[in-house]
């Protein structure tokens, strides 16, 4: 009994990565980044705004947060809709009160079904990031390239036709890409995606597309839903992260703190207070620059 001899061959064992998607560098060796106004920590609020069809297609996989019971899953369908009808408006009010701008990663279906939500986002000056079609619009390498190209186009068209502007950014569902995704996103004219969590500053793929890392470890889904911690603990962890990044920025240049928020998770009545307290605390910090994804990309690009 032995393994196939090829199992001990390492054809991509070489300096740099075992792929050619993007080059390696250490964040501590790069030219320090400066954010506008002499601020050192860009606080990037990114809200996922999603519509889950009650008929999950599982092609190629079922999105986190999707339906769980036998049909009809009123429980999860309506609990997610609560996020869009009620929770999201709590978040918009919280952003307004704190005087901050956010990015909203929005399913194309939200624009098609609830165009007034898009108008409300734009009226407050927030950015819209394309976030697939609806929550059946997952991507993986098992999705045929033509279908993925069409899915990206449908998402962008739905958002552009209602908002009047083509999004610059893209967030895949569950941050899941195929081998083709960076190529297809660049082809579609997108400036950046947020799926790769390997860094804490923007970086560029070999094909020119930018990645702005949306740290999944700092998301409300990871901390509250997966790890089952309280909203107070979440807020404390974000403050600890901010403190660390502000101290590191003093020696090494600007940093980004991405806060990935889900309306049906964070904007429940018993959690939203902790989140509002977090926003107040961060807004009071002299190092904080609240910025949308596109503003961060622009400030960063100008210094490369």
């Amino acid at each position: 009994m032995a393994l196939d001899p090829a199992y001990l061959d390492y054809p991509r064992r070489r300096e740099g990565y075992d792929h050619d998607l993007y080059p390696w560098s250490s964040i501590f060796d790069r030219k320090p980044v400066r954010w506008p106004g002499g601020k050192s920590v860009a606080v990037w609020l990114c809200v996922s705004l999603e519509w889950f069809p009650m008929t999950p297609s599982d092609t190629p996989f079922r999105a986190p947060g999707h339906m769980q019971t036998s049909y009809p899953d009123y429980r999860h369908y309506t609990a997610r809709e609560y996020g869009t009808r009620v929770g999201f408006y709590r978040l918009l009010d919280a952003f307004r009160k704190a005087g901050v701008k956010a990015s909203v990663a929005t399913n194309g279906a939200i624009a098609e079904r609830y165009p007034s939500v898009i108008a409300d986002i734009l009226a407050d000056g927030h950015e819209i990031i394309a976030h697939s079609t609806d929550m059946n619009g997952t991507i993986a390498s098992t999705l045929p390239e033509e279908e993925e190209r069409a899915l990206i186009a449908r998402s962008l068209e739905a958002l552009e036709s209602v908002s009047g502007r083509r999004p610059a950014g893209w967030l895949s569902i569950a941050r899941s890409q195929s081998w083709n995704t960076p190529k297809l996103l660049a082809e579609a004219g997108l400036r950046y995606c947020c799926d790769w969590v390997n860094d804490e500053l923007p970086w560029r793929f070999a094909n020119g597309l930018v990645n702005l890392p949306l740290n999944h470890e700092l998301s409300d889904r990871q901390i509250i839903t997966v790890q089952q911690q309280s909203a107070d603990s979440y807020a404390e962890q974000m403050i600890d992260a901010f403190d660390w990044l502000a101290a590191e920025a003093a020696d090494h240049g600007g940093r980004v703190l991405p806060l990935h928020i889900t309306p049906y998770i964070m904007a429940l009545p018993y959690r939203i207070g902790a989140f509002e307290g977090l926003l107040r605390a961060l807004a009071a910090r002299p190092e904080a620059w609240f910025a949308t994804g596109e503003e961060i990309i622009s400030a960063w690009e100008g210094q490369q």
Partner: protein
Amino acid sequence: MGDIQKADPGLYDFAPYRDRPKIVWPGGRKVAVWVAPNLEYYEIDPPANPHRKSWTKPHPDVVGYSHRDHSNRVSHWRMAEMMSKYGFPGSVSLSVALCQHHPEVVRDANERGWEFFSHGIYNTRYAYGMDEAQERAIIEDSIRTVREATGQTIRGWLAPALTHTPRTLDLIAEYGLDYTCDLYHDDQPQPVKVKSGRLISMPYSLEVNDHYGFFVYNMSPRDYADTLIRQYERLAEEGEASGTVMCIPLHAYLIGQPHRIGPFGEVLRHIAQDGRAWIARAGEIADHYYQHHYAEAAHGA
């Protein structure tokens, strides 16, 4: 995989914690504390091992891969600086192919005076199903690769992704390695029965491993820090009777996240200031144990 599967692996005698020969660490310290950063490389598109899947998603598993890539772009230096600040050297569990992929990371660890042991070629290539020649090949590759990259000769082994064969421990002893981190039966080093040469188990830890803390027990960063301090306090207290070992196994992409590194620094500060800890490398602990305690413990083993 093996020919005969044993119900008891036969690696050590039963030796209860009570009434053992006393271990005394240098300077009369009570607990030997060693930090084990896992410096790893996970391939984006590894070949399949028939006995274990690597990524759970079709390749590329973007979150799985890029989360681990965070170590080699950001968090290694964060973790390493914190360790250096409080005087903790690392004993590195190394995917040896990292020497080729990111020599900057390996060089940084070597320049800090850290020790290296092998954690296989990649953390996406498993030993399950290997025959003896294949297993010898990865041990020889490990010895050669680390020697060429760092000048060091590896003295320990932590199986790649904790995948073993029944012959792994005999083979690493035959190649002259001194310790294994793959056995979790004790809070003190113990002799391991091998066909030739000699070997000890070096207490590593799954329970206080940052991966378990954050992804099995779902702890907050501050809860994990509190766990490490409780683990330390208890082992230091018991070390009055006979020296104990505490390992802190780490992964930079976990402990080096911005919400975790600060609370972790408080743990290192606590241990460094306490006075009861012998802060050491795994090889130093092994040396001391072999010189002063191995013969007595191995009597009859």
